[in-house]
């Protein structure tokens, strides 16, 4: 491990751990997790699937739009390593996707089409519950080394704890409620991105950056900002203005 990477890994854990102590935003946390994985591990992107109270999986976060689409594809076709990982509650390692065409006849061509050659899926676990799966996508053939796998699983485990942290988290109803809240937050976030995209003529990636920038600079939770934008109690124009000023002051 190089010095820089070591420092980054420590930083990632500090951020995740501090979310356990301070008030935190689930959507922000999981977005951070996928970004951390893409940056720290030998993969090009990461995506996260989370199950709701009914056991139905949803795409909760992704480090790139392509990965999001691929995760959606798995859910639609009920075919792919992340689904198997969730159902079995165990890691799935695919060093070379081409070798697994028979196992996932729909997923493999779709993943190859967007340039991925290898996939590793890690379960999000909390005691006996499997909450979802973290997918790590690589553009080259080859297995992740043990160190990367362990690090990825450790990040996923800390995020799992943060996701359902509650005094009564042993109660499956409470766990379900918290996951449900997280999934609803995701819906509101996507809607808020849409509002900003339409009003500011932005693409969704930039709309998200505007939203997040405003939340961070004002010390408010991402989900709260998104909800206020969707409710129209916070004018979307104010966020766009903030982003423009931010941009000017940095230029």
């Amino acid at each position, binding site marked *: 491990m190089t010095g820089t990477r070591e420092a980054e890994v420590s930083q990632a854990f500090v951020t995740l751990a501090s979310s356990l102590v301070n008030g935190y935003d689930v959507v922000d946390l999981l977005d951070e997790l996928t970004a951390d994985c893409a940056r720290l591990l030998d993969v090009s992107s990461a995506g996260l699937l989370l199950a709701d*109270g*009914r*056991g139905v999986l*949803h*795409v909760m976060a992704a480090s790139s739009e392509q990965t*999001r689409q691929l995760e*959606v594809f798995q859910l639609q076709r009920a075919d792919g390593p992340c689904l198997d990982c969730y159902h079995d509650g165990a890691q799935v390692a695919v060093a070379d996707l081409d070798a697994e065409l028979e196992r996932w006849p729909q997923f493999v061509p779709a993943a190859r089409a967007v340039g991925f050659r290898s996939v590793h899926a890690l379960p999000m676990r909390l005691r006996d519950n499997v909450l979802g799966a973290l997918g790590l996508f690589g553009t080259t053939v080859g297995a992740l080394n043990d160190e990367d796998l362990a690090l990825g699983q450790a990040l996923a485990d800390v995020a799992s704890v943060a996701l359902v942290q509650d005094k009564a988290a042993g109660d*499956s*109803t409470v766990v379900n*409620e918290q996951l*449900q809240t997280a999934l*609803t937050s995701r*819906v*509101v976030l*996507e*809607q*808020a*991105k*849409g*509002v*900003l*995209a*339409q*009003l*500011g*003529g932005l693409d*969704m990636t930039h709309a998200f950056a505007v939203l997040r920038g405003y939340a961070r600079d004002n010390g408010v939770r991402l989900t709260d900002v998104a909800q206020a934008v*969707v*409710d*129209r109690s916070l004018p*979307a*124009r104010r966020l*766009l203005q903030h982003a423009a000023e931010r941009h000017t002051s940095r230029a």
Partner: protein
Amino acid sequence: MKGLEGLRDDLGAAMAGADSALAAADRLCRACVDLLEVDGASVSFMHQGTTRGTFGSSGELSRRLDEFQFTFGEGPCLDAVAQGSPVLVADLGDPVEQRWPAFRGAVLDEGVSAVFALPVAVASSRIGALDLFRNQSGPLTERSLRGGRLAADLAALPLLDLMSSDVDWDAAARGDDGWEQLASLERVEVYQATGMIIAATDVAAPEALVRLRAHAFAQEMTASELSWAIVERRIPLARAEWLGRPGAPAGPS
């Protein structure tokens, strides 16, 4: 007893072929009685603080029980909508249960001892609740609770139809599997396009989704297809007549 997957299929199938939103909601409620070990079920509707009422029910008694909440202005269903999470009352007769004195008395008089209220959401906004009634006190089983949540999800579809009652829905539009329709509304691009419609028309999220769905139907597209077209700006929203409110705020000034 059927597993969750079987429940899902049966609940979805129950609404198939109904020729109106009201009939679909009634069928869903009757399916809850058949499948979830409860004696009655109803769906109530609350929209923007103006419209409210009982929408579907498994029978006369359930409808009356549901309406008590609106008569008295209190009840687990109103609380479930307000807080966005289930309100599960395993024993209404328990003397420590004092949350809804008027509602409680009226319901107990009808011989009902347990009420389970599950919120119904459209485009992340809570617009109603599914109420399950049981004569016997005691908690719902894990399976029935999960099944109830599935039913509450499905209940969003007839409520959406109700909100857009000016649209002439073809029976075929809801004759298929309800889950397929629901899944098509639960896509990221649909949320994003809903947000874009909110910005273009200044309406609330549920209303924006109604307009999106109505236009998709009129254009013989799925909600997802239309949403992609909107997100990729192949269908511009500025001055789009189907949005109903031309001249609404456009780009940044």
